[in-house]
């Protein structure tokens, strides 16, 4: 399938999903859908660096929170429509991704991962001590009463996240089939051999960290409007880092569809667990679900659901 065709289909699928949600009986569906789509964006963004290029990022929550906190700053300083805030949040996180990449990409394997974790801790400390954005007390965001087209506010946020998900997935699919995708795969397999084959590894890795960080920041930017109260503990929540690693791992890391499958699966299960008050509605149950699934998949299907499907289909094709 050509890239242009894929973009058109992705946009059409997005439109259909939005249409279906408009038929939903109550506003809760938009709220649950927003959370799941947020994870589609985060998992897809993580996979551009982690799955395609092979650099495991433990700092998803930091990029997400930076996007969210840029919105808090803009809300106080210079209120503007949320789509613009998404662009600003993406730019901030993208620049931090570029900087982090420049400082840490000489580290390989697990050392890179530890550096991303350390960066998340440092950023959380900085935000916790920055009074302007509420420090450890957190910041309140007042939603506008109405939105121009949709009336209610949550469907509007849902639509923004849906657009982001479509864009993120289409970007990932475009990369996968392009020269850039081959370069990323070469880096993942063997950096020295990639250099010898003419691949400018440092530049490509910086592109991956920047793009991945920017998409995570974009996913975080609408978040303060969604929960209306943001504090460092929720912005830098461990849930984001764990989920955005687990979802591509469970779905399959080599293909754009893997993170979607993982995010839809885990995100939905987590929402159902919350609604049905499973385990007394303890929020930690979300992490438990991810943990159990992760262990199961690492043992049963190390290449994720996509890998499982490929091994089933292969003998028939030959």
């Amino acid at each position, binding site marked *: 399938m050509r890239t242009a065709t894929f973009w058109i289909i992705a946009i059409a699928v997005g439109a259909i999903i939005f249409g279906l949600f408009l038929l939903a009986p109550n506003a809760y569906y938009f709220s649950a859908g927003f959370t799941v789509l947020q994870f589609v964006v985060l998992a897809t963004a993580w996979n551009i660096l982690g799955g395609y290029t092979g650099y495991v990022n433990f700092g998803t929550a930091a990029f997400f929170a930076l996007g969210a906190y840029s919105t808090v700053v803009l809300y106080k300083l210079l209120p503007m429509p949320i789509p613009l805030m998404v662009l600003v949040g993406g730019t901030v996180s993208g620049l931090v991704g570029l900087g982090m990449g420049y400082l840490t990409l000489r580290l390989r394997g697990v050392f890179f991962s530890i550096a991303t974790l350390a960066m998340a801790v440092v950023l959380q400390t900085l935000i916790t001590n920055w009074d302007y954005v509420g420090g450890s007390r957190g910041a309140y965001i007042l939603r506008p009463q109405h939105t121009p087209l949709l009336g209610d506010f949550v469907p509007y946020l849902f639509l923004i996240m849906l657009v982001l998900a479509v864009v993120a997935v289409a970007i990932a699919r475009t990369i996968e089939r392009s020269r850039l995708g*081959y370069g990323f795969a*070469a880096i993942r*397999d063997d950096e020295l051999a*990639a250099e*010898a*084959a003419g691949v*400018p590894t440092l530049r490509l890795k910086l592109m991956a960290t920047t793009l991945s960080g920017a998409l995570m920041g974009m996913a975080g930017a609408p978040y303060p409007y969604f929960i209306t109260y943001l504090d460092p503990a929720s912005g830098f929540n461990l849930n984001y880092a764990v989920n955005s690693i687990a979802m591509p791992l469970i779905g399959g890391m080599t293909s754009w569809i893997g993170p979607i499958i993982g995010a839809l699966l885990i995100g939905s299960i987590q929402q159902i667990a919350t609604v049905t008050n499973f385990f007394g509605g303890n929020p930690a149950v979300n992490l438990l679900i991810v943990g159990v699934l992760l262990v199961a998949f690492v043992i049963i299907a190390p290449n994720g659901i996509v890998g499982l499907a490929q091994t089933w289909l292969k003998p028939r094709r030959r």
Partner: protein
Amino acid sequence: MADALLEVQDLGKHFGGFTALDAISLSVRAGERVGLIGPNGSGKSTLVNCLSGTLRNDSGRVRFDGRIMDGLAAHERTRLGMARSFQLPRPFGSLSVAENIRIPLLYTVNARAGTRLSPTEIDARCLELLQLVGLAEKADRRPRDLTQVEMRKIELARAMAAEPKLLIADEAMAGLSHSEIDDILALLFKLNERGITVILIEHIMRAVMKFSDRLVVLVAGRKIADGEPQAVVRNPEVERAYLGE
């Protein structure tokens, strides 16, 4: 030498207090077949790494095709026409054999000014290179399904895909059988006939003597001999390095 393709001047490299390369000077003309030998640990691979940009030399200068290479990254040197194969094959494991060849086509040939292969031309070029090394039927396989000699051939095909002027083959034959060595040798001769200068780093004397126009010997980071192969192996200093007193 004015018409030298590769000119190395007083190249030095230290690892801590250990001198791996000590003022190596070397000059290779276009079209030449140069054999580089030396006992284990004599600095052959370090020299290859310094030439190809994987390591930075501490002193001296490398001039290739009229350009000074010092400070250029490995991928830039590959694009300028200096290709290498690795001592231990380093294929891209998650990609098919054909895709392994596609990477240098996309990132070297297509990255040079004035050339842009279309997707069909790239497919054709992949197949052509795989035919050259005799791996055409295995184009869709993964590298892990290949034998040792086939892995060496991917290494060479990948280096060839970059359309190099100079190919540095780092122990492309180590561990291979007699007939497999002849296979790789025939391939290297074929490449040389196409106008590619070849530097062959090798332990297997039969192969080196058959292939080289000229033989260079490194011992303990110094160049101790450089000349016509038969004369070099009779050189007493070389004999002493290999056989002892």
